[in-house]
């Protein structure tokens, strides 16, 4: 697949964030551009956790960074509570920033080595004019307690903490401004196996405690399944498949989703292990393949896949949308 379309967009009142036809391109020299994200559409309802999954180069992190305006948006809309973040600049943009916060992949790189962790956590409050008065001091203590970092270590600098502790500090910093949306960009992939579960549980707890809406980006299908209500599968800057977590994992329809599920070391029972045998080579994002971007590696590709880009369509009447000319589910039901 890897296609366009809006069938997956919902009409509810409680949609908090809607990304429509988002395009992000980076200059790559000699007049070429990297098509990092191409016409991606999805939405996130209030209180929901949306997982975005895909391999490196699929644009999942770029989507996150575009929503939060860390990279420039080339085209499309990012509607947050009805306002288009894509068009905001300067002070207007700065004013909405506290609403959407982010947790980064590398817990160590995301903390300033020269600042004390208490100041790191208090930075948001300091930016917005709370001069670390008694009110916000309580707030910092509460946050440190909530994320499991002892307040008495507040005067230490990040290098005195382990990776897991640093990630907790990063979470506290993001929560200080009471955001509505928390974007987690591979928040556990830099951590040791035995620490990952601690952080994943913490994120779930924080979500409940602070009423967050979460965008969770990861390459790890098991982790994404654990945390997400709904999932977007991306490939080379395009959306392949969107649906409720249960739908995606129990009835994966897109050949790429199936390949992913078949490739993990302990493959999902819903797919055959041979479905993981797709080619090694990710096509260049500066010259993406025509038609469906996945056709170069897809075992089901036909002529139409090379020429016509698939548009997302609903499968049955479930919360399940796929952009593919030959989705797997359809064939099975036809048989």
């Amino acid at each position, binding site marked *: 697949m890897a296609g366009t379309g809006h069938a997956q967009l919902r009409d509810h009142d409680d949609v908090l964030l809607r990304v429509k036809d988002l395009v992000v391109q980076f200059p790559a020299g000699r007049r070429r551009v990297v098509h990092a994200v191409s016409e991606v559409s999805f939405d996130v309802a209030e209180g929901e956790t949306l997982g975005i999954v895909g391999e490196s180069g699929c644009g999942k992190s770029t989507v996150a960074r575009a929503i939060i305006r860390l990279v420039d948006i080339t085209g499309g809309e990012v509607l947050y509570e009805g306002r288009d973040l894509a068009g905001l600049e300067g002070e207007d943009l700065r004013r909405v920033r506290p609403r959407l916060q982010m947790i980064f992949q590398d817990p160590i790189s995301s903390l300033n080595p020269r600042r004390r962790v208490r100041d790191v956590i208090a930075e948001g409050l300091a*930016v917005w004019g709370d001069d670390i008065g008694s009110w916000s001091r309580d707030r910092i203590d509460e946050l440190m307690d909530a994320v499991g970092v002892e307040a008495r270590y507040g005067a230490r600098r990040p290098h*005195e903490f382990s990776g897991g*502790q640093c990630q907790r500090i990063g979470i506290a910093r*993001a929560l200080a401004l009471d955001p509505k949306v928390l974007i987690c960009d591979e928040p556990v992939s830099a951590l040791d196996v035995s620490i990952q579960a601690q952080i994943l549980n913490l994120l779930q707890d924080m979500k409940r405690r602070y009423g967050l809406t979460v965008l969770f980006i990861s390459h790890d299908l098991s982790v994404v399944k654990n945390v997400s209500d709904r999932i977007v599968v991306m490939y080379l800057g395009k959306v392949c498949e969107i649906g409720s977590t249960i739908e995606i994992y129990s009835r994966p329809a897109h050949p790429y989703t199936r390949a992913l599920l078949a490739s993990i070391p302990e493959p999902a029972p819903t797919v055959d292990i041979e479905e993981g045998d797709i080619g090694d080579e990710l096509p260049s994002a500066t010259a993406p393949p025509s038609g469906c971007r996945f056709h170069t590696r897809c075992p089901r590709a036909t002529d139409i896949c090379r020429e016509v880009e698939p548009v997302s369509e609903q499968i049955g009447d479930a919360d399940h949308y796929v952009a593919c000319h030959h989705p797997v589910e359809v064939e099975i039901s036809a048989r």
Partner: protein
Amino acid sequence: MSAEDLVTGEGQATGRPRTPVEGKASRERLLWRFRIVRLVRPGRVPDDSPAGDESAVRRRLGFSFWLAVVWLLIMAFVAAFAPLLPVADPTKVAFGGPREPPSLDAWFGTDALGRDVFSRTLHGARISLAVGGFAIVFGMVVGGGLGILGGYFRGRLDQAVGFVFFVLLSFPALVLAILITATLERSMLVVSLTIGILAVAPVGLLARASTLVFAEREFVSAARVLGAKPGRIIVRELLPNVVIPMGALTLLGMAVAVVAEGSLAFLGLSVAGEDAISWGKMIVDGAGLRDLQNATHVTMFPVAVMFVTVLSLNFAGDRIRQYFDVKELAF
């Protein structure tokens, strides 16, 4: 700490000799490895250990560092209080006979005009250190400021800053110095500024380079996401990180500036006036062939003091750089 980090040496599977790796990413990786191998991590906070147990593992600067610092402090004191010290008037001609060797009256002997070399050396510290210090501070503020701005904002501003730096670097330093000092009145300010301008580009390039590195780090992104304005990001997030490598450079730069003043003095372009004494000028005074042959002390004492001072600056600067280098990368 992870033991694996200690052995990220360049292993390779095939027994071939390894050639230096090129490309930015690889270079950084190698650099990173090299640093990790030799660094010592300050203790992390174990979940159950009492706070404050890591002070015991602080790195030491070493005895020789403190020796250098003591010398520099003495020099600074002398420079500040030279007129108040109980030494002879450095400008008094015929304090003793001309070119007298060191004695109890004149510890460093006298020069061609019979002036006390010891007193003149102490007074010379004033201009030499002041010029050196002022020049490098100017270089830091102007070069460092431009470098950080260019490195953070990139784009046009960065191009303009880079252009200025390259022009400064390409222009023959000596010609620039001669141009300025020859056309303007050779006051201490002008001489300091001349050397300071020469310091702008090297300091600025360093500041720009380390800003580029830190601006890529996620904590800068995190600050933007929190809504911090560029000024705040530069001051709170970047400056503390960039200032450390620059700070260590201050002493090294000052050493260069002290030597530069000496070089200008050789061209007769240091601070003008009989009562403006500097080490450079003293060395020139004693640099006649006859003096060098018969009265070596006239040049050797200021040379020795200047040498030890420059050595101390270099040594202390280098130790500080190493010290902070380790601390900074001690994740």
